[in-house]
Structures are given as C-alpha cells and as structure tokens.
C-alpha cells in the first residue's frame, strides 16, 4: 500500500485486519504516503466512503475481516453494481456467533456472490503481489477486488517478504484513471439510478462478461508483474498433479501446509491444486487440470449449512463439466482458527490412497453429541 500510495483509504478497526491499517496510518502520519485516510465510525461507512471516493475518481483501498465485511454487506454489492474499482484486503476470520477472532473463510465465502473478484493468498509475499495485481485488475475490469489472506496465520505470522523496487512497482500500478468521475464537472453523471423491470436485468447482466474478461485480464496483468518479480501468476498453482492419484484443492495458507505434507509423502502419488482466483471461478481450467486425477479432495475452511461447502461445490461443477469419473471428496477443516497440521493432511492423503476416506469428512473435529 505504501508503494501504491492510494488516494483514499477509509478504515475501521477489526481484528485481525487492524495490523494493516495501523501500519498504514503511520505512513500517513509520517508523510511517507500522501493518501487521505478516513477514520470512519463503522465498516458500513468505510465501504460507503469507498464507494463515494471511487466514484469521484480516486484510487481506493480498504480492509476488513469477518463481522466488518458482514456489516458492510449491502454496500459491498453497491460497489460492484456501480462497477467501482475498489480494492479490499480481506483478512479472513470466522463469523459470529459464537464470536471468534481467528481464521476461517466464512466471511469472504459468504460474499462470493456479491460481484467482487476474489484472489486468495498463501502467504504474505502473495498478499503483496496479489494486491499489486488487484489494483490493475480492478481498474481494467471496472470491478472491485478482494485480496484474501488467512487471519493471524498470514496476517500476524512473521516471515520474510521480498519487496520490489519502488520505481518498478509504481510504474507497474501506474496512474489511476476512472472514466465516470463525479468530479468531471464538464460531464455530470448520475451514479446509482433507479432501474426497474425494464433495465435492471441488462445492467446486472453486464457484470457477467466483465467477470469473464477479468479472468483473462488477470493472466495478462500477472504476466506483466512477472517481469518484475520473476514469478508466474496462474489462475491456480499445481504441485505434482501430473502423476498424482490424489490431489487436494484448497485456498490460502493451508496450501503451504499441504506442500509440506506432500514432501513427507515422498514416493506417494499426492498432489496439490492451490487456487488463486475464486471469483471469477476458472471452471474450465480447473476441470482440465484435474480431469485425469483419480481422487480429488477439496478442503474447505467454511461451511454452507444445508448445502455443499463452497469450494467443493465449485470444483465438483468444474469436474462434472469434464465428464469426470473419478472420486471427489469434501473435507471441512479449521473453523474458528483451529489449526490443521501436516500430519492431518498426510492422513487425508493416505486414507484417500488406501480407499479409506469418507466422501464427506471433517479434519480435526472432535466428536459431537
């Protein structure tokens, strides 16, 4: 965010997001950036200010977690409906009740149909790089972007991050431009009109091709960032998929734990597909990558009560489209920040390879009455 130097940053404290905005506030206070921070009285106003500032042609970044995202819900949908290129850091945290400040994905998964692009990040390095992509992607697609990371695990974990040269990054993110600014006084625009049965449908439909284009743009922008970072930014990362008999699909930091499990399982046919882009969901690409795998295990850090867990549902859709005839498993883990250990993932792989894995299972859940 220091390198991006956004014009406007509305912020409201919520654990575990607070670390981001506190650090950024010191940049503001010390004149390291010239962003205008708005210390709002709620997340609802954070998103409302973000909408107003973005519609006025400012580059806007905000951040939230859990209940904060839930409180801003209505305006999260307004932001995408108005096609505003806002970037929001989501530090994933469980939703209440019971209240819990630790990581799961129920917050961003609950917001998956609100019209935002969602990028998930394995570690702090990816959060940094995904944020740079998000800025460009939002502005190109005219869609808001959430950059998700695991609360505490990533947000408060201490790890080395390679920071790229300021000049290179500034050049990469470039100058913000927005075609329908409220501050273009020569061409007054009306944002957020009333649209009834005669127009609403068409306006909403336009978000469909916009999302489809965003998928292609993500790859293009990723390629450009790769020139600075030397890394590749696919829709997902693959590890050992080609020869694997069992592949785990998951999001965020658990991908790191899974990689460690795969290393320990040397010689066994275990692979990983770490999804980066969840919205738009790359059905075709995920389906292609997994169609030959005998056993696909989807690990969700969220529940969808009375329905399939969110990531599992999407992967199953992708495989169905491919005429998949292997086995697909759904595992739910880590709600409310419960740790998932390398050994547990090893066991999931072993059980799958030995045909002992249940179709629907939980990892680390104690027996409940």
């Amino acid at each position, binding site marked *: 965010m220091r390198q991006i130097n956004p*014009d*406007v940053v*509305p912020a409201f404290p919520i654990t575990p997001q607070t670390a981001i905005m506190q650090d950024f506030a010191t940049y503001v206070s010390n004149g390291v950036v*010239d*962003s*205008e921070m*708005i*210390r*709002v*009285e*709620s997340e*609802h*106003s954070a998103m*409302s*200010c*973000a*909408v*107003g*500032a*973005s*519609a*006025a*042609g*400012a580059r*806007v970044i905000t951040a939230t977690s859990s209940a904060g995202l839930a409180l801003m819900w*209505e*305006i999260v949908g*307004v932001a995408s409906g*108005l096609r505003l290129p806002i970037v929001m850091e989501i530090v994933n945290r469980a939703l209440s009740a019971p209240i819990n400040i630790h990581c799961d994905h129920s917050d961003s998964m609950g917001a998956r149909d609100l019209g935002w692009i969602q990028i998930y990040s394995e570690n702090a390095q990816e959060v940094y790089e995904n944020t740079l992509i998000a800025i460009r992607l939002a502005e190109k697609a005219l869609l808001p972007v959430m950059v998700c990371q695991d609360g505490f695990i990533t947000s408060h974990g201490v790890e080395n991050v390679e920071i790229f040269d300021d000049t290179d990054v500034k050049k990469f993110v470039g100058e913000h431009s927005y075609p329908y600014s*409220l*501050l*273009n*006084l020569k061409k*007054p*625009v*009306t*944002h*957020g*009109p*009333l*649209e*009834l049965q005669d*127009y609403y449908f068409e*306006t909403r439909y336009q978000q469909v091709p916009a999302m489809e284009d965003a998928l292609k743009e993500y790859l293009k922008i990723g390629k450009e960032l790769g020139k600075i970072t030397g890394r590749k930014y696919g829709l997902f990362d693959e590890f050992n998929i080609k020869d694997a008999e069992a592949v785990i699909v998951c999001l965020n930091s658990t991908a790191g734990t899974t990689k460690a499990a795969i290393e320990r399982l040397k010689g066994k046919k275990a692979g990983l597909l770490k999804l980066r882009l969840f919205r738009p969901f790359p059905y075709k690409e995920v389906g292609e990558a997994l169609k030959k795998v005998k056993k696909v295990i989807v690990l969700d850090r969220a529940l969808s009560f009375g329905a399939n867990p969110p990531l599992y549902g999407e992967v199953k859709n992708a495989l169905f489209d491919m005429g998949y005839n292997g086995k697909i498993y759904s595992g739910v883990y880590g709600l409310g920040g419960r740790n998932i250990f390398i050994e547990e993932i090893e066991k999931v792989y072993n059980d799958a390879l030995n045909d002992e894995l249940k179709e629907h299972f939980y990892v680390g859940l104690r027996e409940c009455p």
Partner: protein
Amino acid sequence: MNYKELAEKLKEKKLASGHRSCAGCGFPAIVRAILASTDKPLVASCATGCLEVTTTIYPFTSWNIPFIHSAFENSAATIAGVETAFRALKKKGKITEDVQFVAFGGDGGTYDIGFQSLSGALERGHDMLYVCYDNNAYMNTGIQRSSATPYGASTTTAPAGKVHQGKEEFRKDFAKVMVAHNIPYVAQASLSNMIDLTNKAQKAFSIKGPKVLLVLQPCTLGWRYPPDKTIEIAKLAVETKFWSLYEVENGKYKLTYKPSKDVPVTEYLKAQGRFKHLFKPENKEIIEKIQAHVNSEWEKLLKLCE
C-alpha cells in the same frame, strides 16, 4: 437573496423538471432553492427515498450536476468519500476547481437509519452541507412512522385505531442533536419561507466544514391534504410554532423568523388528514398535550436565542 435573484438563479435548472414526484410534493422546490444558493460547482449525494427514486428513473435523470445514490442509510458517508477524494486529488494537482458538496436525505434516512453515518461524517469535519427534507415519516415506502413523525399523527405502522391514537411519542429534536456535534452551522427552514431558506443555504455554503439544514416538507399523500395546499400547510407549521425557523452558528442560536401572533396548533393539525382522529371529543387531551409541547419548546428556544 430576494425572489428576483432566486428566480434568475433557478434558470440554471440544476434539478430539471420532468421528474416524477407527486403533484404538490414539497421537495423539488426545496432542492432547487438549495442548489441555486451557490454559484460554485456542486456534487450531490442522496439517500434512497422519494427524492432519489423520482429523479433518477433510468435511462433518465433530472440531475444536471454530478450525482450519486448508494443506499438508504449512507448519504452522508457517501458524500464524505467524494469530498475526501476531492481533497486527495486536489493535493495531487489532478483537479483545480473549487467544488461544493451536498447530501440529501429524508427524515428516515437522517433521523433513523442514516443517523450513524451522518454523525460520523459531522464528527470527522468533512466540508459538506447535509440537507434533510423532513416529511415526518417513511413516505417512499408508504407512510410508516419514523422518529420524526409528530406525536398523534396516524401512519401506516402506527395508525389511529380503537385503542391507539397514532404515534405515542414526541419527535426527536434533531436540530439539537446536530448542534451537539459542535459543527459550525445548523439551521431549520421551511418551504413556505423561501428567502429564509435560501439565505440559510447561502450562508451554509459560505462556511467551511460540516453544515446541516433541516427543512420541513409537507407531503400530500402522507399528511393527507389537497396538493394545492403544500405551501399553506408549511406556513401553518411555522405560524403555529410547530416548526420554528432558526439557525445555530458556532453554537449561537438565532431566531430567523418570529410569528407576529399566536396561532393555535389546531389550525395546523386540522388541515391534515393524519391528525383528523385527534378532533374526536375523546382525544381532546392529545391535542392539549401537543399544544403544551409546542409552547414549552418555543419558550426553550426563545431562551436559547437570548
């Protein structure tokens, strides 16, 4: 400003005709007068409500100035975002003009659901004018009770019936709530006193920081009176001291209009269908209570204006 100057300024039509507000609706004249009270470029935000839905029916818009509607409860936070963007872009040299910011909301979007958003924006000191067109209920959704609905008024969610006689609580004294934010300017105005209204709007636009203008807006459907009586009823509210015209500049109260004679509040009440039930003999007490409340509020106001 005098009427001649106002008529001249209204020619610019920042809010164009052709919108679909009801015949006799009070807010178009209020909004036009306020928009005409500054010569600087304006950006407006508006809460969901009658004003927004009648002026922005896609693919048309009545707004000849930049306009944004986001939701019901966040008109103030939205304009705060626009105003902050303006400061950020001005600092970076991306905009050179001087721009003024105005937010509109009905009483529901101001007194109730938008209260937090407004309070936060005022406390943060954004350079904006917030205008509440107060028609005393949730009119857009069909005349439901708000905290601005007067005691005794019949609404669809607190209707007069055999046991209950309409709203059983007095209105929130919102101007004083605004004054408690220690902002530079708060004023109450009425559609019936147009020059007083534009003078207040002009003054508000000339002051830097957050300003709030509360304007009483009679509603033909909700208050149940013929459309040609709008101005008359607004005038009765002022003359009976039911709605007083005053301003508070840097905490200092000033009465801007003093009715020349005492007109009983029944003159105001009997002109409207929403108070009709109060004139049944058994409801005499309610009317007396309203008159007593008006009297004591007026006395308090006079003291504050000393």
